[in-house]
């Protein structure tokens, strides 16, 4: 038996999926969720094999919800996004359905799932690591901390620090871990506001109060919070460029 969950903020949209699933008795829908918060909870509880996921939803969107999951199920996106926007995700071969979709198209997506489930899973990972983003994601980062979901607006980030497989996001409310790479954030954060000053650090330039020389060709950036962040030689060059020095 395949366990599945439907996550969409519109009841009618969920009912289409349920209706189309009636011919697939091997798939059992364990729960329907109204938004990403409910989705995370349900997925952690039921550990489904497959989820049907809308992208535009209240509070956090479908991608942000996936980012919060440690173990990611196979995903079939069902969205009303226009084709132009979806092009970016297409290259990752995650299957997606454009609303409204036919039963035939839906069956095809399921077929793909049955034949290539492991591949789909890998592609979901790849998709999440790519810097392709929705507009809302350029304004905030969603993290999970002690079972709770926190939304961090980008301007409130003080600096980012590499921590093994994770990135530690420092804000004035504390620090949060996110399983992305430094390279991802360097690419995704607004380049006139955030500078990768060091292999392991990205700074919000608004927070810098002083830059001091420090050993040989290195520097230290002193932030308003008092934090002292290493700045490498090449990082110093990038920093000067952004600050217009």
């Amino acid at each position, binding site marked *: 038996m395949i366990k599945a969950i439907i996550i969409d903020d519109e009841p009618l949209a969920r009912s289409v999926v349920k209706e189309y699933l009636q011919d697939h008795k091997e798939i059992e829908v364990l729960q329907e969720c109204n938004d990403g*918060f409910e989705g995370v909870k349900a997925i952690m509880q039921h550990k489904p094999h497959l989820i049907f996921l809308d992208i*535009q939803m209240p509070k956090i969107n479908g991608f942000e919800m996936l980012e919060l999951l440690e173990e990611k199920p196979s995903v079939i996106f069902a969205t009303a996004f226009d084709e132009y926007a979806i092009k970016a995700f297409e290259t990752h071969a995650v299957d997606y359905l454009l609303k409204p979709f036919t039963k035939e198209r839906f069956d095809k997506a399921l077929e793909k799932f049955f034949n290539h489930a492991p591949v789909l899973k890998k592609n979901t990972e790849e998709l999440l690591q790519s810097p392709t983003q929705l507009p809302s994601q350029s304004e905030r980062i969603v993290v999970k901390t002690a079972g709770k979901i926190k939304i961090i607006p980008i301007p409130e980030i003080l600096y980012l620090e590499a921590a093994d497989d994770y990135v530690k996001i420092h804000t004035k409310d504390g620090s949060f871990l996110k399983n992305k790479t430094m390279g991802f954030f360097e690419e995704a954060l607004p380049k006139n506001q955030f500078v990768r000053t060091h292999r392991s650090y990205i700074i919000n330039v608004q927070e810098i109060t002083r830059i001091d020389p420090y050993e040989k060709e290195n520097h230290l950036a002193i932030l308003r919070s008092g934090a002292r962040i290493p700045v490498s030689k090449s990082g110093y060059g990038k920093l000067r460029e952004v600050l217009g020095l």
Partner: protein
Amino acid sequence: MATSPLKTVRFKLVFALCWACWGILHAYVLNWFGFSWKVAVWDSVISNLLLVGVSLLITVTLQFYIPQKNRYGYILGLCSVLALIWVLLSRTLVVLIINGATAYESFFSKSFPVRLAIGFLITGCMALISVLWYTVQDQQEIEKRKTEAEKLSKDAELYKLRQQLQPHFLFNSLNSINALIGSQPQQARTMIQQLSDFLRGTLRRDDNQWTTLEEELQHLQLYLEIEKVRFGHRLSTLIKDETAGLKLQLPAMLLQPVVENAIKFGLYDTTGDITISIEAKKDDGNLVVQVSNPFDPQTASPKKGTGFGLSSVQRRLYLLFARNDLLQTQTNEQVFITTIKIPQQK
């Protein structure tokens, strides 16, 4: 603010040249009457410099105050008074400089009416030119605003069709219809009808730029009804029109982006039961429409960046009425309120 005609270099040149010719002629005539060149030149220089001053004074005054139509008596009065002051002042100054020339003094007294007439004519001409100039500029400004307003409303329509209807509203509505066809075919039919009426309404508003509040509210009602099919379980709407029967007017499609904005923050970005309300009333010769929606302060911050929706409304109102205070927004705890005033044409 209208710019003075003397701001352009060409005007300045012509102005200076005319005065120079006039001054030379003036001196020549006096010399011809038998006065020495010294007296003639002094008279010409002082009288004409003062007259230049008076002319400039008139242009500048009219730049800030143009009398309403058919009230040009004010200008005539102004010119007469200035001409009189000018003659008396130039006489005093010229006599002061050329002291002891009694022949000149009696000549001045004799030529007083002529000088007064010349002064009145020249100041009058200057006033006329200025009034014409400023009126034309005003007209051009109004014309420019009007065409820009028309263009913007066209752009907004196109934008609506391309951007706002297509990806979310239109396809999600079609998806809902798809769902209803299976379970409630009658309901699906109703929704197709509503969607068609709404789209037709959006397309039709091409040439008639102003519409009645009643019509606009009907159009919004259709839009909200469609959203209710999609989110009926948690969306309720409240439309209150206190102006029924007053036939108030407003620019077509003005409220649509405001309500779309309310739906975007109030419905798409929230999870609980919500109410979106639209209230219209008449206040002091204005139609006042207030749209309010809840919002989630955790994910949305309506204070910064009003988005395409509201900035285009603001711009359109400015182009139509040359006022920036007609659109106002406020947040009241977790409710976002947009207030629009539309001055009514008499």
